[in-house]
């Protein structure tokens, strides 16, 4: 197949909180032979506006995203939630604007969540990561229920020799994040997260892995508040891409304090909860 | 304006009702009522033995107990056997339609009438039975009063094997064919009454019978 030109939709959370997930995604796509472009004007897909009842805001951001990404063969995001906004919701935003609706529909049909893209479109044989240990996979709501992302990340994780998967109870149950829900109803959100974390801890896995950063922030925040300092909380891209995962945060002098969880064997540098190693 | 006119008026307004679309919709309604389209049904083996076996299995899943006899004349003895085994009284109220059976010959005192609160055992037939779910279909009438299967703590139902049908849809067809219109009460019964209202713990015998015993007659 000719080299696919992929527009990487970084997502606003990855941009703000975990750039290394963006770089891991970039690496996975490039390793699989894609030409990856990261449009530098991208911001947010508009899902927070859409889910909060601000339809005009959602429409404006959708138009912006469509214009930025419609030139690529594919649009890939390291998030089921953002990919779903483009893929499932965008076409419906333009009931009264047929021209935009057509453009949205065209973009939607070429938009993929990362693991779905690697498995369904690229059909990759191998991934560069080399994680060692037991992981448990949290299926994020939109990914599993709207996009049908269930086997894809598991199939990819299975390609890593050192990884064994221990499914938790209720792996498809919501972690309680829910976007703005997490800050509007913090107490309920955290209580739901507690059930999820109980299941994660009961799985005995060394790391919980998921495909959406929102869920991961929620889960990590709850695990730590519950006193768990050892369970790693990783984006699936980080595990699949493995170690040479450039560049880490440079916000503090002295090589950026390490994560209290320490490094994961097989993953160079602290991955989650602390700055990653490496640099440009 | 009456509430009826007010409510229907607002529904009509919401639906943009006019003479034209009303005529078309009326045709659709007539067609729907006439065609009685069935939805997806489970695949059920219609072989009589398979039906009986499924009905028996599903009835037991519903916590009914099942006895099978070869002919109707054996029913009173089978009922007496069950009552004795369960240490239950030998007197019962039964549907008038079962008056011809020799209950006395089996040592039972059976009165055919409507049920009373004091009745401990109720004996009924059934209009037909549904193998899909292990369900009895009871049709009320002067000879088949509804309360006989409801008030007593023990309900014994006689089921003719030839009246075991695959699905509820088949039961409706049989009712239309044999009764014309629906009786006042059609009661589908699937095992003893039960509740799960305290801590989702299933308890048999809520307001109706504690036990349902089926005597299937292989006719």
């Amino acid at each position: 197949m000719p080299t696919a030109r992929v527009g990487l939709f970084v997502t606003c959370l990855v941009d703000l909180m975990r750039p290394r997930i963006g770089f891991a995604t970039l690496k996975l796509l490039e390793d699989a032979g894609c030409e990856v472009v990261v449009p530098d004007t991208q911001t947010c897909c508009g899902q927070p506006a859409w889910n909060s009842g601000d339809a005009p805001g959602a429409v404006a951001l959708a138009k912006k995203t469509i214009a930025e990404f419609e030139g690529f063969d594919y649009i890939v995001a390291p998030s089921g939630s953002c990919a779903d906004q483009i893929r499932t919701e965008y076409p419906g935003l333009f009931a009264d604007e047929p021209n935009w609706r057509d453009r949205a529909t065209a973009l939607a049909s070429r938009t993929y969540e990362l693991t779905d893209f690697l498995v369904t479109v690229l059909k990759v044989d191998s991934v560069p990561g080399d994680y060692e240990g037991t992981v448990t996979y949290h299926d994020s709501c939109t990914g599993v229920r709207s996009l049908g992302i269930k086997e894809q990340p598991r199939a990819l994780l299975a390609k890593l020799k050192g990884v064994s998967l221990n499914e938790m109870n209720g792996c498809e149950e919501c972690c309680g994040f829910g976007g703005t829900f997490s800050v509007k109803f913090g107490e309920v959100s955290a209580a739901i997260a507690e059930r999820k974390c109980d299941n994660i801890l009961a799985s005995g896995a060394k790391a919980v892995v998921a495909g959406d950063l929102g869920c991961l922030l929620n889960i990590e925040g709850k695990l730590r508040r519950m006193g768990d300092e050892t369970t790693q909380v990783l984006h699936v891209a980080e595990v699949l891409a493995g170690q040479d995962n450039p560049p880490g945060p440079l916000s503090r002098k002295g090589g950026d304090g390490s994560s209290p969880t320490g490094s994961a064997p097989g993953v160079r540098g602290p991955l989650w909860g602390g700055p990653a190693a490496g640099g440009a | 304006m009456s509430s009826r006119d007010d409510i229907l008026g607002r529904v009509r307004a919401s639906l943009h009702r006019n003479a034209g679309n009303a005529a078309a919709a009326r045709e659709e309604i007539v067609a729907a009522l006439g065609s009685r389209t069935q939805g997806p049904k489970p695949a059920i083996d219609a072989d009589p033995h398979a039906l009986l076996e499924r009905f028996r299995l599903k009835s037991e899943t519903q916590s009914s107990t099942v006895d099978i006899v070869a002919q109707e004349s054996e029913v009173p003895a089978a009922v007496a056997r069950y009552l004795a085994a369960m240490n239950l009284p030998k007197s019962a109220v039964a549907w008038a339609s079962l008056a011809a059976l020799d209950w006395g010959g089996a040592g039972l005192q059976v009165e055919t009438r409507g049920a009373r609160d004091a009745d401990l055992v109720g004996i009924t037939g059934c209009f037909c039975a549904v193998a899909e779910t292990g369900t009895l279909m009871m049709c009320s009438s002067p000879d088949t009063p509804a309360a006989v299967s409801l008030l007593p703590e023990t309900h014994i139902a006689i089921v003719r094997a030839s009246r075991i049908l695959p699905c509820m849809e088949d039961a409706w067809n049989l009712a239309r064919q044999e009764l014309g219109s629906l009786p006042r009460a059609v009661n589908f019964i699937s095992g003893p009454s039960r509740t799960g209202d305290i801590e989702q713990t299933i308890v048999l015998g809520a307001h109706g019978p504690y036990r349902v015993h089926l005597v299937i007659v292989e006719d």
Partner: protein
Amino acid sequence: MHFKANVHAKLSDVVLQGNLKNAKGKFVTRRAEAIRDLDDFEGTRDAAAAIRNKVIDNMDLWLETFERKALDTGAKVLWAKDGVEVCRLVIEIAKRHGVTKVTKSKSMLSEEAGLNHALEAAGIQPVETDLGEYILQVDNNEPPSHIIAPAVHKSLDEVADLFHKVHGTPRKTDIPALTREAREVLRAHFLSAEMGLSGGNFLVAETGSVALVTNEGNGRMVTTMPKVHVVITGIEKVIPTLEDLSTLMRLLPRSATGQSISNYFSILTGVKKPEEHDGPEHLYFVLVDSGRADVVGSDFHAMLRCIRCGACMNHCPVYQTIGGHAYGWVYPGPMGSVLTPLYAGLENSIDLPHAATLCNQCGIVCPVKIPLPDLLRKLREKQTEHGLRPLTERIGLRLWAWVAQHPKLYALGARVGARYLKWLAGDTDRIRLLPTAPEWTLGRDFPAPQGKTFRELYAARRSATPRT
């Protein structure tokens, strides 16, 4: 309807939390097993949604068809615009027939209308006969917290204490014994009440019948023993044929309680004939609007498909966490968060449409495929349009959306944000108190960011390794 205020109390209620945890697992596993048992669950869901749509799309004519058939059977059909009219009509019927006591099978519309209170005020004794509803009635008329299992929030110990107090019997903690105690108390009421009142799971247009689904047999009791039977039901409950009833019945018990069929499924048509031993001499249908007519043809018409199985709440992470009472009205969980704003007013339920993570577990389990998350989102949109959300939130959203349309400004904001969060975390990997979103850190930490944004690091990498 002060959802948010209720939530804290519910989360701190240790007994309730235990009861909810216990209930959740049972509902979910029982349903999953029952669905597996059905050959074509998805096909049946599609068929069920189509049946419900068929009627909703021509609801006026289907209602007239049902009414005509019901009148033919000897029933009387009354119409009520709202709860006040429901109460008035039921009290009129009761007075006409000299009724002093009404036995009731579960009716959510009676809860909507506040009927028990009105009956009592009119000197008529209402007796709830569903075990769960009975438990609540004798506990100072506590409202139900679930549409299928009204007392699901109560533990065995609480019921044991309650029966001991109310019945004056020795305290017992054996569930069958408690059930028998209620049976004996209620049997006397069944036999002495002059009027039975039920809801209706479905109204069958073909035959003018009401279909009732119960397990306890109380539905059969209240429709068999008293001389008057009153059915109170919403105008959306009509379905065309008995065949349609069979299709819906493959889904309702499975979705509600995980049963392939409920113990009792009664189709009641007309009144007792003179020579019959049992059955009511008078049958009344009270068809209730209470907001439903206005939902027809609206953005929310799919909600009228609801068959009140409760699966959405059983699978809702929010409901599982706080129970039904926090929702503040008759209908809890996702279906309630849609119905309450529609029937009780958008302005009276500001929080409810937002009280969901939009995880779509509800939409997946709904037997009639109601897109509950979409409806919740539409309600949020209506609230924003009508200026019902807090001003700070509306301004915040608008500002954020505006900034997100200006990439340079946005990038700057993200840079500042990442550094600010990093500063808050200090030397640690977490933020314990997030001043900009304190709700987040009420019950969990907020992980520290890496400190720079992706776009900064990516630009740095690009300039370090120029591409060809």
